[in-house]
C-alpha cells in the first residue's frame, strides 16, 4: 500500500503506474508458475502416505484446520458452560461448598500452536536483545572488553543451538523448580534455546556498528568537548543503530528457524510439535497438513522480518535501509 501511494504521489504517474503493474504482474506470474509446477510435480511422487499433496489438497487441509480450531473452541465453551451450571447447582444446594474451576484440557489446535511458537520466539528474542545490545555496545566501545568477549563469542557463535537443547532442558529442569510455575518448563527451554542463537548476530553487529562510527563525527564531539555520556548518547549510539537493527533482524530470522527445529526435537508445544505429530500420525492427510504448517511458518517468518523492518524504519535515521 505504501509503495502504491509512493508511486501515485509522484508526478507523471503513468510511467510509475506501469512500473507498479509490471512488478505486481511479474510476482503474480511467478507465483502462478510455482503453483502449477508444484501441482504437476507433486502428483508424480508416490509416498507411503499417498501422493504428495498439491496446492488444492493443501488448501483443503488449511480449511479443515480452521474448522477443527472452531470445533475445539466450541467444545471448550460448552465445557465451561457445563462447569458453570454444575457449580451454580452446587452453590444453590450448599452455599459453603468448595467450587473448583477446572481449565479445559482439550488438545491444542493448529492456531494454539502458532500462538505458542510466536510467544516463545518473542520471549527468546527479547531476552537475547536485552542481553546482546548492552554487551555489543560495551565491546564496541572498549578494546579491552572486546578482547575479553571475542574468544567466547567466536567459540559459541558457530554452535548449533540444537546442541544446547539437552543441556538447556536439564538445567531448566534442575533450576526452575516451582510448585506453581509461571511458565511451563518446555516454554522456557524453547525460549532459552532461541535466546542462545539470537545473541551472537546482535552482539557482533552492534559491536561493529559502535566501533566503526565515522571518525569525523567523533571529532565533532571532541571539538565540542562533549562529555563522555553525551558523546555516547548523541553520536555513538545513533550512528550504530542501523547496524544494530541488521543484527536484530538476522537474530530474529535465525531464532524463528531454530525454534521450529527445537520444538520438533524436544516435543515442546508449538508449530514444530504440530509438524512432528502429524508426521508421527501418518494419516493420508498428514503431508498436506504439514505443508500448511510449512507455508504458515514461512509467512510468519516473513511477517516477523517485515515487522522488524518497520521498527527499523521508525527508529533508524537511515531510511535507505534495504527492503530485502
Amino acid at each position, binding site marked *: 500500500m505504501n509503495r502504491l501511494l509512493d508511486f501515485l504521489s509522484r508526478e507523471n504517474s503513468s510511467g510509475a503506474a506501469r512500473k507498479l503493474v509490471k512488478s505486481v504482474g511479474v510476482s503474480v506470474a511467478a507465483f502462478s508458475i510455482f503453483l502449477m509446477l508444484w501441482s504437476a510435480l507433486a502428483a508424480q511422487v508416490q509416498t507411503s502416505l499417498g501422493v504428495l499433496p498439491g496446492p488444492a489438497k493443501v488448501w483443503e487441509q488449511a480449511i479443515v484446520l480452521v474448522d477443527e480450531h472452531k470445533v475445539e473452541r466450541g467444545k471448550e465453551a460448552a465445557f465451561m458452560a457445563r462447569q458453570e451450571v454444575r457449580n451454580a447447582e452446587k452453590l444453590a444446594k450448599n452455599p459453603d461448598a468448595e467450587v473448583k474451576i477446572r481449565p479445559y484440557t482439550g488438545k491444542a489446535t493448529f492456531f494454539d500452536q502458532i500462538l505458542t511458537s510466536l510467544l516463545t520466539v518473542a520471549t527468546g528474542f527479547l531476552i537475547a536483545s536485552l542481553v546482546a545490545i548492552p554487551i555489543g555496545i560495551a565491546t564496541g566501545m572498549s578494546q579491552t572488553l572486546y578482547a575479553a568477549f571475542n574468544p567466547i563469542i567466536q567459540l559459541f557463535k558457530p554452535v548449533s543451538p540444537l546442541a544446547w537443547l539437552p543441556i538447556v532442558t536439564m538445567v531448566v529442569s534442575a533450576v526452575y523448580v516451582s510448585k506453581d510455575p509461571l511458565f511451563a518448563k518446555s516454554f522456557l527451554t524453547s525460549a532459552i534455546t532461541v535466546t542462545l542463537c539470537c545473541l551472537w548476530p546482535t552482539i557482533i553487529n552492534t559491536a561493529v556498528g559502535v566501533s566503526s562510527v565515522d571518525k569525523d*563525527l567523533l*571529532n565533532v564531539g571532541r*571539538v565540542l568537548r*562533549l562529555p563522555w555520556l553525551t558523546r555516547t548518547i548523541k553520536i555513538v549510539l545513533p550512528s550504530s543503530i542501523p547496524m544494530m537493527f541488521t543484527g536484530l533482524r538476522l537474530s530474529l530470522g535465525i531464532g524463528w528457524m531454530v525454534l521450529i527445529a527445537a520444538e520438533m526435537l524436544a516435543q515442546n508445544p508449538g508449530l514444530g510439535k504440530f509438524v512432528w505429530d502429524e508426521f508421527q500420525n501418518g494419516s493420508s492427510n498428514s503431508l498436506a497438513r504439514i505443508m500448511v504448517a510449512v507455508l504458515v511458518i514461512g509467512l510468519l517468518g516473513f511477517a516477523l522480518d517485515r515487522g522488524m523492518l518497520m521498527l527499523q524504519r521508525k527508529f533508524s*535515521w537511515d531510511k535507505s535501509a534495504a527492503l530485502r
Partner: protein
Amino acid sequence: MTTQTHLELTSVSIDFPTDHGPFRALDNVNLKINQGEFISLIGHSGCGKSTVLNIVAGLHRATEGGAILNGKEVTEPGPERAVVFQNHSLLPWLSAYENIELGVKQVFRGKKSKTEMREWIEHNLDLVHMTHARDKRPDELSGGMKQRVGIARALAMQPEVLLMDEPFGALDALTRAHLQDSLMEIHAALGNTVIMITHDVDEAVLLSDRIVMMTNGPAATIGEVLHIELERPRERLVLADDLQYNHYRSEVLKFLYERQKRPGESNESPETNSTCADNSATEEQSEKAPEITELRVVSG
C-alpha cells in the same frame, strides 16, 4: 590588519609511529597568524596540511613545538577552534537546526537562555542562507547546503579561529563559487581568524590574506608565504582580469609545479632550514611591492 600575534605555531614537528620507526610528517613549522587574518594552506597531497590544521584544532599533538592561541598552548580540541570538516560531518539523524543546536547547547550552557540559544542558532542559519532548510536532515540537502550548515555549526560555536579542511573540495565549481562568496561575506562581517586548507589556487588567492605554501613530505614544512594584497571586498569577475591577481596565481602555480614537484617525481631535495621567516617586519614594506619581497625562494 593588527600586528598582535593571535595564533602562533612554533617549531612544530610531528612523528607518526610506523612499523619502521617514527615517520616525520612535519618538520619545524613556524607561523604567526594575526587576529582576523585569512590564511590558506596549499600544497600537494600528503604534504601535511591537514596535520597542521589538526594540531591547531588539538586533534593531534605535535611531537615537538606546538600551537599557542592567545598565549595559551593548545593541548586539546575545543570550540574556540571550530573545525569545518571536508565531508561536512553533520550528524545524519539530526536536522540542520539540531546539528547546530548540539554545539550551541554545549558551548553556551548556562550563558544563554533557551530563547537566546534559539535566536542564535537561527541567526547562524541565516548567516549561511539556510533558514529555509532549518528542519531538513543532511540526506535531504545538497552537498553545498550541507557544507553551509557545517559552516554555520562551526560559526555558532563563536570560535576565535575557524579551521577549514578543504571545505569546498567535494563541491562542483558553481556551488563552490557561491560558498566562497558567502565565506568572504561572513569573514568580512565577523572577522574570525580563518585557516583554510585548499587545493584550489584560485580559491586561495581570492579568499586569503596570506597563502602558506607547503613543501612535499615527508618532513614537510612551510616553503613560502605569499601575501595577497588585494582590496576587499573582492569580486571574482573583476579580479579575473586583474594583473595583480593573476600574478599571485602564477606565483602559487610556480611554487606547486616548478619548485615542488609532485611527490614521486622528485628526488627529495634536502630542506635546508626552510622555515617561513618572520613576516611581520616586512609587512608595511610589502604593501607596496608584495610580489618581490614576499616571495622567498628557500629551496630548489
